């Protein structure tokens, strides 16, 4: 894997880190749950015949789920100062503190 394709890390102040974590998680949860609800409505809780499925509604559901995932993944690049990066990166010892 090339080095620049590695996930980018942005170190932010601690209060901002809390803001990012809280609101992005909140948004992700609401979006994913809402997405599944939308899918349920579109497919009549999975029991509708294929031709009766409402296409825009199900697209909306999938889009919401995807949006939630994207926001959650995007938020993971922000870190507070001193927080550990991924476990297997080589700039820290593996002695687990």
């Amino acid at each position, binding site marked *: 894997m090339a080095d620049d394709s590695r996930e980018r890390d942005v170190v932010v102040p601690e209060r901002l880190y809390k803001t990012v974590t809280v609101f992005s998680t909140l948004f992700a949860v609401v979006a994913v749950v809402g997405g599944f609800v939308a899918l349920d409505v579109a497919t009549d809780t999975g029991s509708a015949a294929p031709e009766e499925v409402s296409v825009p509604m199900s697209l909306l559901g999938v889009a919401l789920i995807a949006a939630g995932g994207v926001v959650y993944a995007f938020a993971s690049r922000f870190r*507070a100062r001193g927080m550990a990066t991924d476990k297997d990166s080589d700039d820290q*010892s593996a002695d687990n503190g």
Partner: protein
Amino acid sequence: MTDDETTEKEARTDGTGIVPPDDETPTWSERKERTTGLSRLTYEYFERSRREDQDLREESDYVERDVLAFPTWPHELVRNLALTSFFVGMILFLAATLPPHLGDPANPSTTPSIILPDWYLYWSFGLLKLGPLNPELAILGGEKLLADRTYGVLANVVIVGFIAIVPFLNKGSARRPVEQPFWASVGVMGVVFAFTISTYSAKNLIPLDPHLLFDLTFLVPPIAGAIAYALLKTMREGYMYDLNRRYYKLRPPK
């Protein structure tokens, strides 16, 4: 050796006072330097807890106790909450998996084959069946002084009364069963008797000769008590001294 003695002297036996961080606890600056592994946030959590704890203890409203005890709040209750919420989960699990029984409606004219109270009253129910132990007095011409039923009710009172006066009979600082083999074996005897008398209360359901069952009811508990006594004595003589030498240095057995 000298090192041991000084710590022995400093340590307070009543469990009060500020407990200094022991040698293994990293200092504040050590913790601050450690940023690898567990995230720094976690260190701050621990550190802040420790500091707040120390502040609380140094404030005058933190009650120093002169009773030999562990504080109920918050320490014991926080620990208990963690454990007991699991137990409450078990109640919900049992309630969901094993629903209760509802028998036929009450019918005064037909006596069912099983007449039993709930399990926790079996011992009391068994005591009502102690008729064979009721002494027949020669003065009364072989008649019994008390009706068998009255005798059984009195047996309940005797047992509860004995349990009630235990604290006034057994005094002293011994706490562990190994420190007090006699009282621990009395306890074992009591527990085993609770089981045997409960079994005896359902004697019509037990595939044993009633007389044999009756004898076993009163023979098994003393045997169990004797075994427990021998076992505890052996433990006390044997490895407990090696295992807990410091404990006995502190509070020698009577």
